[in-house]
C-alpha cells in the first residue's frame, strides 16, 4: 500500500471530491497561489483554477459566512482556516448561522460545508496561536466535529465530511501534516461518528483522538513492556460520538484514562469522563482519569509549553494510577 503524508491524504481527498462534484470549492487565506500556508492544497489551483480554489483576504468572519451562504443554496464549500485559532473571528458565523439554519428553518435549509485547519498547539507559538478548539465546537448541537489521527482516516473522513449535508468542523494538526501512513489507492470512505480500537488490551482503556494518539500508542507500548495491557481507542469523531465503542471498551477493562490536549474545565474530555462515569459506573474499578492541558494560556518558552501539555509519561502515570500500581 502506498505510504503518504497526512497533508497529502487531505489533498487527495479534496482532489477526488472536486473531480467528482462540481459544487465542491475550496476557499481560504493562501490556499490558491501559495498552495496553502501548510501546503495542504498543493497543486489544486493548477488543476481546478481560480474559480474553484479561491484566495481570500484575511477576513475570517466574512469568508466563513460567505461559505455558509453558498452552502445554503447548493455549493459544497471547503473553508480552510489557516489555523483554527483564527476561527475565533468566525465563531459567530459557525454558531449562529451554520449550526442553526436547519433547525430554525424547520428542516428546509441544509448547510453542507466543511471547515478545516490545524487545531491545538504546535511549537513556540505562544498563547494566541496554540489553542485547542474541540471543546468550543463540540459544545454546539447542529454541527459535526471530527479529528482523525492517521493519513488513512484523514482521507476517508474528509471525503465523508465533504459529502455530508451538515456543517463539519474538521480538526487537523500542524505537527501532524508530515506524519506518514498507509493509504490505499482504491477509493474508500470512513463514516463520521465511528471510533476505532487501535490496540486491544485488557487492563485499562486509553481514549483519545487527533495528535495525542501518537503519544497514547507509545504509552501503551511502555505499559506493555512493564507488564500491563492497555486498550487504545481513537475516537476519530467527537460529535457524533461513538458512545457504544467507548462503553464497550471501558466495561471490558474496568479502567479508563482520557487524553485531551485542551484545558480541563468544561472540556470535551471532562464531558466524556462524566458520560463514562454515569454509564459504566458499575464496571469501573477506579475513577476515570483525565490527562489534559494545564489550566493556563500557552507560554512561549519551550520547556514550559511542553510541561503544559499531556506527555507519554503523564499518560503512563495516569494509567498506573487507575490500575493502583
Amino acid at each position, binding site marked *: 500500500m502506498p505510504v503518504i503524508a497526512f497533508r497529502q491524504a487531505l489533498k487527495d481527498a479534496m482532489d477526488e471530491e472536486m473531480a467528482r462534484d462540481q459544487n465542491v470549492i475550496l476557499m481560504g*487565506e*493562501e490556499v490558491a*497561489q*501559495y498552495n496553502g*500556508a501548510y501546503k495542504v492544497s498543493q497543486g489544486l489551483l493548477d488543476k481546478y483554477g481560480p474559480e474553484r480554489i479561491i*484566495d*481570500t*483576504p*484575511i*477576513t475570517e*468572519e*466574512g469568508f466563513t459566512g460567505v461559505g455558509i451562504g453558498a452552502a445554503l443554496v447548493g455549493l459544497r464549500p471547503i473553508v480552510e482556516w489557516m489555523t483554527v*485559532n*483564527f476561527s*475565533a*473571528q468566525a465563531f459567530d458565523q459557525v454558531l449562529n448561522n451554520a449550526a442553526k439554519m436547519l433547525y430554525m428553518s424547520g428542516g428546509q435549509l441544509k448547510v453542507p460545508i466543511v471547515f478545516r485547519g490545524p487545531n491545538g498547539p*504546535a*511549537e*513556540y*507559538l*505562544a*498563547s*494566541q*496561536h496554540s489553542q485547542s478548539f474541540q471543546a468550543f465546537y463540540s459544545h454546539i448541537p447542529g454541527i459535526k466535529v471530527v479529528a482523525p489521527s492517521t493519513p488513512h482516516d484523514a482521507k476517508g473522513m474528509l471525503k465523508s465530511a465533504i459529502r455530508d449535508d451538515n456543517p463539519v468542523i474538521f480538526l487537523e494538526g500542524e505537527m501532524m501534516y508530515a506524519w506518514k501512513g498507509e493509504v490505499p489507492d482504491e477509493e474508500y470512505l470512513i463514516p463520521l461518528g465511528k471510533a476505532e480500537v487501535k490496540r486491544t488490551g485488557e487492563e485499562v482503556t486509553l481514549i483519545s483522538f487527533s495528535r495525542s494518539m501518537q503519544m497514547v500508542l507509545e504509552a501503551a507500548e511502555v505499559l506493555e513492556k512493564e507488564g500491563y495491557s492497555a486498550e487504545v481507542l481513537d475516537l476519530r469523531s467527537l460529535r457524533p460520538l461513538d458512545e457504544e465503542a467507548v462503553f464497550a471498551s471501558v466495561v471490558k477493562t474496568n479502567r479508563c484514562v482520557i487524553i485531551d490536549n485542551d484545558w480541563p474545565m468544561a472540556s470535551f474530555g471532562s464531558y466524556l469522563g462524566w458520560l463514562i462515569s454515569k454509564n459504566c459506573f458499575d464496571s469501573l474499578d477506579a475513577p476515570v482519569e483525565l490527562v489534559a492541558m*494545564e*489550566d*493556563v*494560556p500557552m*507560554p*512561549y*518558552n*519551550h*520547556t*514550559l509549553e511542553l*510541561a*503544559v501539555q499531556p506527555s507519554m509519561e503523564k499518560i503512563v502515570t495516569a494509567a498506573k494510577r487507575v490500575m493502583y500500581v
Partner: protein
Amino acid sequence: MGKGKAGVTSAAGTAPEKKTTSKTPGGSEKAFRTELLRQMLLIRRFEEKSAQMYGLRKIGGFCHLYIGQEAVAVGAVAALDLKDDYVLTAYRDHGHALACGMDPKAMMAELYGRQAGCSRGKGGSMHMFDVDKHMLGGNGIVGAHIPVATGVALKIKYKKENGVVLCFFGDGAIHQGSFHESLNLAKIWNLPIVYICENNQYGMGTDFRRVSSVTDFSKMGLSYDIPGSQMDGMDVLKVHAAVKEAADRARKEHQPSFIEAVTYRYKGHSMSDPATYRTKEELGEYKSQDPILILKAQMLKSKQLNNEEFDKIDAGCKRIGNEAVQFAEDSPQPAIEMLYEDVVV
C-alpha cells in the same frame, strides 16, 4: 502586568535613553536626525541578530522581521511623548518596541524565551510588551488590536489627557471587520488615535492588490470621514512629518487620522517563508530606496553627518545587538512555577 514588570526591567539592565519628542528644547535638527538614523540602524542590526540566532535555533516559532520597514516605526514614534502617548501593533513588533525605547536585552531574552525577557519568556517574538514605555504589544491575531488601541484612545479622552495612540497594522489587516468597526467608533466618538497602515505590499504570500477593492487605502479612512493620505513609508522624515501633523490633530481636536505608509519587507513573511511570490527586481527596487540609506544620503548632503560618524553609530548598534545576545544567553530559563503566574491577578 505592572507587578512583575519592575523586576524584569531592573534585571534587564538600563535601556539606552530615548528621546521622545522631535523638538527637544534646544535640540538641533542634526541631533534629531542622528537619533532617527541610530534607531533605524539599531532595528536593522537587532533584526539581523534575531535572524542569526533563529538560524542557530536559539529562537523558535513565528518570528517576523521588520527589516526594510524601519522608517515607519521610527519616524512615527518620534512624534510621540510616551509619557502620555501609546503604541499598539501587530506581531511584526520588534521595530516598534525598539522605537519605543524598549531594552534590546530584555527583547532578545524574550526571543530566547528566558525569564529576563520583557514578557518573562511567555510571549516570544509576537508579544513584546512594556507597560512603562506605553508599548501595549505585540498582538498575534490579525486586526485584533485595532479596537483595543481605539479603547486606549477612549481612556485618553475620558480622562481628558493630552495623549494620542498610534495603532500600527498591515495591509492584510485592513480588511478585517475590526478595522472598519474601529474607524467608525473613533470618528463618532472623536478619539485621539492615528491608524497607521504599514502597506508592505504583502500579507504573507498575497499581493495586497489581489485582495483589496482599492489600492489607495486612505479611501477607507475617508469613507469614515477620517482624514488621511497614502505616503512614502521609506523616508523617515516624511513619515515623521505626517504622523506629527496627525498626532497634533488628535491632541488639539480629538480627531482620528489615517495614514497609509507604503513600505516593503526585505525578508519573507516569517522565517519559514522563502518569498518566492515576488521578483528579485521588485525587492531590488525597494532596497535601492532603503530607509537608512535615504536618511544617510540626506544627512551627508546637508553635512549633518560624515562617513566616520555613520560607521561609529553603526558599530554601536552592532555592539548593542551582540550584548543583547550575550544577555539572553546568560539569563535563566523561567521556573516551572511561573506557569500559573499571571493567569489572573
